[in-house]
C-alpha cells in the first residue's frame, strides 16, 4: 500500500527488509544468464522440474542470520503466497517440509514469527492445496481468515475477517478464541468494525 511504500524502501536499504521477489527470481532462473558458481537462485527448482525447496530455505536462513548480528530483534518471515508453490510443481509434502524447517530456524532458533498467506475456499477441489492449508492451520497459533460476505457483494462492507487464536495450552484444553470483524478497504487504509456496525448502517 502506498502508505508504507516509502518506509519499506528505506527498510530495505538499511537491511531491515530482505525481499525475495519470486516472479523476478523465476524470470532470472529461466531467462537469465548462467548462474555463477556458488550463487544459487532460491527458485532454482522451477528449471530443474524439481520439488526441492532446499535452496529457498537456505536463502531464508542466511538472510535472517546475516541480520541476526545487528540490532534487529525477533525476525518475521512473510510468505506470499504459499499456494503458488504447488502451481510450480512443488509437492505438498515438500511445501510443508519447507515451512517446518523455517519454523525451526525462525521461531525456535531466532525467536521470530512466520506469517504465511494461502488461498482456500469451502468448495475447493484442489486437494493438495487443502492439505497444505489444513496442516498449516493445525500448526498455527493465530489464523486470520479473510473472506467475502456470505450474503454477497456489498459496497460498504468488503468482507469479513475471522481471527482464531489457539488456546495457549493444549494440555489444559483451553478453547480457541474466535473474533469476527468486518472491514472496508479504502484508498490508503482499512477500517474494521464489529459485524453489523458498518458506518453506512449506523
Amino acid at each position: 500500500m502506498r502508505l508504507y511504500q516509502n518506509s519499506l524502501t528505506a527498510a530495505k536499504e538499511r537491511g531491515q527488509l530482505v525481499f525475495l521477489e519470486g516472479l523476478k527470481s523465476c524470470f532470472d532462473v529461466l531467462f537469465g544468464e548462467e548462474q555463477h558458481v556458488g550463487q544459487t537462485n532460491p527458485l532454482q527448482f522451477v528449471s530443474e522440474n524439481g520439488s526441492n525447496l532446499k535452496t529457498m530455505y537456505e536463502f531464508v536462513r542466511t538472510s535472517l542470520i546475516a541480520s541476526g548480528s545487528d540490532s534487529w530483534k525477533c525476525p518475521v518471515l512473510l510468505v506470499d503466497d504459499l499456494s503458488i508453490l504447488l502451481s510450480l510443481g512443488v509437492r505438498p509434502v515438500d511445501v510443508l517440509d519447507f515451512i517446518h524447517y523455517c519454523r525451526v530456524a525462525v521461531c525456535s532458533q531466532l525467536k521470530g514469527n512466520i506469517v504465511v498467506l494461502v488461498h482456500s475456499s469451502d468448495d475447493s477441489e484442489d486437494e493438495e492445496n487443502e492439505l497444505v492449508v489444513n496442516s498449516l492451520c493445525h500448526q498455527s497459533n493465530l489464523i486470520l481468515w479473510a473472506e467475502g460476505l456470505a450474503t454477497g457483494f456489498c459496497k460498504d462492507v468488503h468482507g469479513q475477517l475471522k481471527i482464531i487464536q489457539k488456546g495457549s495450552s493444549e494440555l489444559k484444553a483451553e478453547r480457541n478464541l474466535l473474533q469476527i470483524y468486518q472491514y472496508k478497504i479504502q484508498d490508503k487504509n482499512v477500517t474494521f468494525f464489529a459485524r453489523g456496525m458498518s458506518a453506512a448502517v449506523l
Partner: protein
Amino acid sequence: LLGPTYGTGSILENTTLEVLDFNLLPSSLNLEDKYGIYSNLLFKYFLAEGIVCGHNLFVASAKEDPADILKELPAPLSDDALKNQVDEKETAIKSKQESQESMKIAWRYQNLPRIEVNIPAASARFGHYYDVSKVVSPELLQSTKWHRFFLPEEMSLHPEIKTCNMTCGYTRLLQSIQRIIYQEGFDGSYPQKKQKNILRIGIQSLGSVLWGDDICCAHNPEDIYSLTKFLYVLRGLLRMSLSACIITMPAHLIQNKAIMERVTNLSDTVVGLESFIGSERETNPLYKDYQGLIHVHKIPQLNSLICDVSGTKDLAFRLKRKLFTIEVRETVFFHYLEPERWSKSYHLVL
C-alpha cells in the same frame, strides 16, 4: 465491467457504472464458450482496442495465423455511426416504454429521466465502439506495429530450443514474448526512443492440444504443472513490463478442477462465457434476445488479499447487428405480473 459513461440511465435505477479498466490489469483470462465463438470476439475486441489506442500488439496462436486474426478485427465505429447507433437504441427503448402499460406498483419510477445521450469527443473517450459487421481497414492495420507467434511456424523455424520443463509450445511462447519485451524496450531495459507504449498480448486457446498440452484431454495430464508454470512466468513478464495480456482458454475441456482453481488464482481477471448455442437456454423465452451469459469469476481489488466479485452476477451478452452488449438481468420484484426483464446495459472496455 465498463464505461464510456454515457447512456447510463435506465428507467429503474440510477446507479453508477463500475468501470473496470482492463489496461491496469496485466493478465486477463477469458474462458471460452463451447465453440469459441464469443470468446474469440472478445479476444478481437481487445486487440482492436489496442490498434485504436496506438498500442503495440503481440498475437499468439497455435491454430490460426496471427495475420488472419488481425485481418478479421472489428472496425471502429465512426462518430456519426456511433450517434446513429445510440439513437436507434434510444428510439427502441422509448417505443418499448410507450407500449407498456403504465406501471401499477412502481409508479414512483415513472417520472425518472430517460436515457441521456451525450457522446464525448473521441480523445476524451474511455474505450471505443466497434462494428462487428465490418473488418478493420488495411490502412489502420498497416499503421500498427505488431508481432506474431504462430506455433507451427516457430516449430519449423527453430527446431531446437532449450527447454524449461514446460510443454514445448509454452516455452517457445515465453521466450518469444520475453524477447519482444526486451528488444522493444517495454521493460525499460533501454529507454524507448518514442513515447512509452504498451504491449497488448493476445494468446488464443491456451491449454488446448494444439499447444502440446494434454490438460484438455486427460483428467490426470502428463505434465500437470505446465500450464500453471506458464501462467506464473507470464505474470512475471507482465509485471516487469508495460504490457497487458488477454488469454482465451477452453475451460470446458479441462476436467481437472484443481488446475482451473490454480489458473484462476494466477490470473488478475477471469471471465467465463457461456453461449446458448446447443443448450436448452436457446429456446428459453427469457433469453430470446441474447446469445449467452457472462460469468465474472474474478475481478481484482487493489490493496486487498482477496479478489472481488462484482455486485452484478447475472450478466448476459447480445450480439445484435453491430454491437456486442452486456446487460444485467433484473427481476422486478414489485411488479410480479411483469416477466423478468433485462436492462442496464454495460459496455465492455477491453
